């Protein structure tokens, strides 16, 4: 099975660190991280990861805006994006799902099962 390369984009240090730990130690994936949408765009363009896990609420450029910007770039448009949100209300869920992302996962996630959730969403199981 190929080693997956994941880009995590989240402005929260602890979320980035726990998600990276989870994906690296539980699944053995290679993880890059970015603390903003703009930095995430740069890293995604340079590394072309297999998938992107991205927070919804970030300052300056939030997750949905970053996703829309990625869709404008041919090299990034086909990379599956999973949004990560602490918003649990139905209206928010429908709004995020309507963006065209691959999946929406919810915070707080279980570090021991995050990779499994992502694999299922991405069809990697």
């Amino acid at each position, binding site marked *: *099975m190929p080693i997956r390369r994941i880009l995590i984009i989240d402005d*929260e*240090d*602890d*979320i980035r*660190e*726990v998600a990276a*730990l*989870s994906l690296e*130690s*539980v*699944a*053995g994936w290679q993880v890059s991280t970015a603390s903003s949408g703009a930095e995430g765009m740069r890293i995604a363009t340079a590394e072309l990861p297999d998938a992107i896990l991205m927070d919804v*609420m970030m300052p300056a450029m939030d997750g949905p805006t970053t996703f829309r910007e990625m869709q404008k770039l041919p090299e990034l448009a086909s990379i599956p994006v999973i949004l990560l*949100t*602490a918003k*649990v209300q139905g209206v928010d869920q429908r709004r995020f799902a309507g963006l065209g992302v691959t999946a929406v996962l919810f*915070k*707080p*996630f*279980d*570090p*021991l099962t995050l*990779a*499994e959730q992502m*694999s299922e969403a991405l069809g*990697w*199981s």
Partner: protein
Amino acid sequence: MPSTKDPEATRKLLATLWERSLPVLRERCALLQSAAAAAQTGTLTQDLRAEATAIAHKLSGSLGMFGYPEGTEFARRIEEHLESATPIDATRLTHDVAALLATLPL
């Protein structure tokens, strides 16, 4: 999907990350306490309310992943309360902040 490490090793690393996050967590809890105190005296400004809302949102998204799901629930209650259009119920806010703190080994 292969598992490369045992869950116990991951839990130990998580505990290390939790310890590292404690200073920031304490600051965030202190801000929520300040917001609740300001609400009690009728001096909760829009800026402090917005800041407390953002902090509650961050806590709701992070505490559960460290093994404190009750903390997430109280943080979520606080966030929804603070971002609602209705006036703040100072007694409820103070109770929820205290309840949140009681769930955490700070």
